[in-house]
C-alpha cells in the first residue's frame, strides 16, 4: 500500500517538475539515455531520503543530480553500460549513442568533451542560470572552484568551437535571443 502511494506521489512530482529536471540531467550526462539513468539514480536517493529532507524535494534532487554528474556519475555509468552489455548479449553490444539527444548544435556536442565538473558548472551557470554561489551550493564546492571551472570550461568550449567551425559561432550567435 505504501509502495503504490510512493509511486503515485513520485509520479505526481515528476509530472509537475520532471521535464526540466530531465533536461538538465540530459545535458549533464550527455545523452538522453544517460540522462534518464542519472535522473533515476537521483530519484532513488530522493526516495531514500524523502522523510528527512527539509525544504523542497526538487532542490535536493537537483543537488543530487549535480553531485552525481560532477563526481562519480561517469564510473557509475560505465558500470551500468557494462551491465547492459551483459544483459543484452553480444549481438546488442552497440553502445554507440544512438539514443543520444539530437545534437543539432555544435556547442552542446562540444560540451560533452568537457570534464564532468566543468560541464556541470557550465550547465548550472548557463542552462539553469544559477549564480556562482548557487552553483557552488549545488555542486558542493567553493565559489572559487565554480569561477575557475566556468572560466576554463568556456575557454575550452571556445577553443573547440573555433577549431570545429568559427564562422558558425560568429554568424549565429548574435541572432539568438533569450527564450521567453
Amino acid at each position, binding site marked *: 500500500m505504501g509502495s503504490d502511494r510512493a509511486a503515485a506521489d513520485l509520479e505526481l512530482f515528476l509530472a509537475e517538475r520532471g*521535464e526540466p529536471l*530531465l533536461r538538465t540531467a540530459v545535458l549533464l550526462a550527455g545523452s538522453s539515455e544517460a540522462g534518464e539513468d542519472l535522473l533515476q539514480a537521483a530519484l532513488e536517493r530522493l526516495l531514500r531520503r524523502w522523510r528527512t529532507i527539509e525544504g523542497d524535494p526538487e532542490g535536493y534532487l537537483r543537488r543530487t543530480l549535480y553531485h552525481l554528474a560532477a563526481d562519480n556519475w561517469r564510473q557509475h555509468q560505465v558500470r551500468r553500460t557494462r551491465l547492459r552489455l551483459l544483459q543484452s548479449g553480444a549481438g546488442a553490444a552497440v553502445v554507440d549513442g544512438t539514443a543520444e539527444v539530437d545534437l543539432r548544435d555544435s556547442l552542446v556536442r562540444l560540451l560533452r568533451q568537457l570534464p564532468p565538473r566543468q560541464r556541470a558548472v557550465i550547465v548550472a551557470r548557463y542552462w539553469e542560470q544559477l549564480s556562482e554561489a548557487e552553483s557552488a551550493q549545488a555542486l558542493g564546492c567553493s565559489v572559487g572552484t565554480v569561477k575557475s571551472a566556468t572560466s576554463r570550461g568556456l575557454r575550452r568550449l571556445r577553443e573547440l568551437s573555433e577549431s570545429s567551425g568559427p564562422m558558425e559561432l560568429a554568424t549565429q550567435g*548574435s541572432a539568438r535571443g533569450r527564450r521567453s
Partner: protein
Amino acid sequence: MNTELEQRLRADMEQATRDIRIPPGLALKAHRHSHKRTITTRAVAAAGTAAVLVAGTLTLAEVTGAFGQPAGGSQVRTTAYVISRVERALSASDMSNMVGYTRTVYPAGITLQPVPGGGTAEMTIRRVLDRIVAMGVNGSGGGSRSPRWGDYELLWAYHHTTKMSAFTATGQHVFDERLTVGRGSLETTVVTYPSHTWWTAQSPRLAVTGSASAGCLPAGQIRLTGGANAWPAFIHSQLACGAYTAAGKQALGGVDALRITGSSGQFTLWVNPVTYLPMRLQAGGLIQINFQWLPPTPANLAMLNMPVPASFHQVVPPS
C-alpha cells in the same frame, strides 16, 4: 567576449533538449529499484549482521513512511520551490539590462489613447490599468466611451526609454508612442497612423507613489511604477504576499509553462520551466500580458526607435 558564446550555448542547450519528455514509469522504476536495494539490505542483515538489519529496516520504514504522508506535502514544497525560483529570477542582476517586451490584450471597453505627459510609458499602462480597476474585475462599471483606438499593444522598454505600439483587433496599426525619461521631465512623441500626424511634448515627470508596486494588492489589481521593466518588481511583490499555489503545467509558446495561481483565482502567472521568468500574466480574467525578456542586442534595441514618416504633419499635442 564570452557573452556571445554564452548566449549561443544557452540557445543550443534549449534546442538540443526541446523534445525531451519524461518517459512513463520512471518513478515506478526508481521506486522498484530503491525498494529492491532496501530488500537486499534486509536480506544481508537477516544473514547475520544485526547492525545492518537495523539500518535496513529503518531505510524501509523511511521509504514507506515517506509517502504515507498526505500528497499535499509535496505540493506545498513544490509551490515554495517554484515561487522562490521565480522570485530569484526576477531579482537577478541581469534583469535590469534586459529589453522588456510585452504584448497586452485589453478587454472590450478599454481604449488606448496617447496623452502627453501621462507619465512614462509605464504610466500609460498604469492609466489604462487604473481604468480596468475602476471598472472592477468583473467588467462592471463604466469603461471608456471614446472611440476605440487600440485593442492590443506591443511594448518595448529598456532603461529610460519605452515604446508602445497600439493596434486594433484586426491588426491595423493605430499609433506609436515613445517616452523618454530625462532628469525631471519626460518627452512624449506620438505618431498617429490613421490621421498621418505626429506630435511631441515635454512634460514634468510625475512623482510615482512608492507604495504602488510594493504592497499586497487586492486580487486582480495591478499597479506599476516603472515601465515594462517594472513588471518584475510588481510580480515579485505580489508573490511575496503569499497565497499563491503552483498549479501544474500548461503548454505555452512551445514549452510546458508552470502555472501559479492566486487563491482567489484572479491572478494567474505562467513562468518558464527553466528560467522561471514570467511568460504570461492574467489578472481578473480581463487583461492578459505576455512577456519576453530579450538581450539588449542591436536588433532588440532597434525596436525602441520610432521614425516619423516624412509625409506626416506635426500637430499640437492634445491637452
